């Protein structure tokens, strides 16, 4: 029954919500999913994406960016600090560090990326399987996950690589991927569990959709942002871990990689001789890439938890100074 004189149809309930969703978007990026748009509009993750893409670009353009052959020795040029000839200086054997770092980008990024892919695929598959199937499958996978979480990864990796005769990229990727999946498997399982009980999944089951279809077409799309976050996390962890193993002398010592350069720097006691360049530059390259990934991760976190987004600037009303001055925003 419409009351007479209702010129404005009374709309929905009073929005006395105090949670602010960003309303002002300078660039509309139509067609992209919401989470991607939020990611791109967040300054933190934008910067992260720029850094990471920059690194990938360096890796791809390595043959053109490098000034010297990264394996060439020249005792004449040994131990030089940075100069125009050698942007990053030279090692104890006279190899150009700039070229090593530039070429090393390929290897390091590849190891990280490949290991992250393997680990994420494992984590997502096992996590979602465990959540969806429940019962003994869940228990088994849980047990495996917990065991892997309890056994310390670095010592395990150290021992495993010490058994390996050859430590080529493939073996490294395999052992990294097979040990780093546990952490994210637990988180993805938790998320899949909350989704599993949602109405749209139940509706699909009642409608008779086969399990695999439900998992791939209904469940997964809703978890994309979380899976992306998992991938980024494992990426930077495997970057660090791979570099770390190489640093300890347990990686493929014949390849060009940031960790390997650092290893030689340490073994030649560069630091103790006051030579800072052999370890600073590869270290900064590594740290920068990790920072970029961490920023992207922070952006992804804010996508899934709106409360973490930066509180909007408040208008300074005349009384606001007297309030509970935590500056906390709802």
């Amino acid at each position, binding site marked *: 029954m419409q009351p007479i004189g209702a010129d404005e149809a*009374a709309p929905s309930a009073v929005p006395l919500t105090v949670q602010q969703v960003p309303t*002002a978007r300078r660039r509309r990026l139509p067609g992209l999913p919401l989470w991607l748009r939020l990611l791109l509009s967040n300054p933190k993750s934008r910067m992260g994406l720029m850094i990471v893409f920059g690194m990938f670009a360096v890796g791809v353009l390595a043959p053109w960016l490098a000034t010297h052959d990264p394996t060439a020795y020249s005792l004449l040029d040994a131990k030089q600090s940075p100069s125009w000839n050698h942007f990053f200086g030279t090692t104890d054997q006279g190899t150009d560090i700039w070229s090593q770092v530039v070429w090393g980008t390929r290897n390091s990024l590849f190891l990280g990326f490949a290991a992250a892919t393997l680990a994420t695929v494992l984590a997502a598959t096992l996590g979602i399987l465990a959540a969806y199937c429940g019962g003994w499958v869940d228990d088994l996978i849980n047990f495996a996950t917990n065991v892997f979480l309890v056994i310390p990864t670095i010592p395990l990796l150290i021992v495993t690589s010490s058994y390996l005769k050859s430590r080529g990229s493939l073996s490294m990727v395999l052992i990294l991927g097979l040990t780093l999946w546990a952490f994210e498997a637990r988180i993805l399982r938790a998320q899949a569990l909350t989704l599993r009980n949602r109405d749209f999944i139940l509706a699909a089951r009642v409608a008779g959709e086969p399990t695999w279809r439900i998992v791939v077409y209904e469940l997964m799309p809703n978890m994309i942002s979380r899976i992306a976050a998992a991938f980024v996390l494992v990426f930077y962890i495997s970057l660090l871990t791979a570099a770390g193993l190489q640093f300890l002398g347990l990686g493929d010592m014949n390849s060009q990689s940031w960790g390997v350069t650092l290893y030689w720097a340490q073994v030649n006691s560069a630091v103790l001789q006051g030579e800072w360049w052999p370890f600073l530059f590869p270290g900064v390259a590594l740290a920068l890439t990790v920072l970029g990934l961490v920023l992207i991760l922070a952006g992804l976190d804010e996508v899934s938890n709106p409360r973490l987004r930066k509180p909007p*600037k408040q208008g300074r*009303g005349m009384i606001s100074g007297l309030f509970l001055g935590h500056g*906390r*925003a709802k």
Partner: protein
Amino acid sequence: MSAVATKPLLELDQVSVDYVLADRRVRAVDNVSLSIAQGEILGLAGESGCGKSTLAGAVLQILKPPAEVSGGRILFQGQDLVAMSREQLRRVRWRHVSLVFQSAMNVLNPVMRVGDQFVDMFKAHDRIRKSDALARAGDLLELVGIDRGRVRSYPHELSGGMRQRVVIAMALALEPELIVMDEPTTALDVVVQREILQELEVLKQRLGFAVLFITHDLSLLVEFSDRIAIMYAGEIVESAPSDVLFRHARHPYTNGLMSSFPPLSGPIVPLTGIPGSPPDLAKPPSGCRFHPRCPQCTGIDSSLHRLQISERPVLREIDAGHQVACHWVEGP
């Protein structure tokens, strides 16, 4: 029942509260004026979202950004709370004005024993030894009908009704002059509801505090309070002593509310409702905010209709102690 002779305990003078959002301000409480005398129970009723809880928060000055008091004065015993410093406010809070929150479920710290939470409160306002504070906490629990041994319990070990009583006991602890109660019994079943209200009556007789009782359940107020104010879309639309309101409510909204609730006792009456829903306060209706839903806004009397859709009605006293803000009531 008139509190004119003595100075009112709490006086809200044209108070407005806004929610400041990135691109606009939404006025949740609009020029509200109220007063409560010592020892008086004032009921404040209205639908969800009409601004009652915001008003409660404003009285205790615990509103968080983006909500802020944008106008008016809140005078407690003559002093303006809005103009006070943080430290002054901290001293007024609880000792003189306390608040019973809406849902007791989550209002107690889950990792602290109940007694310790009382102790914290006592220590914040007084120099007192822990043992004395715990003893007083025990006394208070007994006052609200809970075994004093429960001082050592954790909140999750108590039932919902018990927790609400604990919260009431906390509100009484420092013997404030005014207690603001925001839907104190909504989450409880009717039996417990009645028990608690009866206990409150008794306590009020003993301790002499005033109460601002906020609820959407008008029937409770009619039985329990001395005066009632009805709130709609951020404004007070009617205020009167409760028996007067019950028998001679004038505002169409009040009447709509009254016929929406079955009373706690008495004969069975047919239920009606109020069509439509509360307005979006970001874009309130022009003129009288209730006019889209008002059965008295029919367009038959064109001059009245024009008033209703263009001018905001003002609270006017039509009888002793009885104020209404309504064009139709004021007559042609």
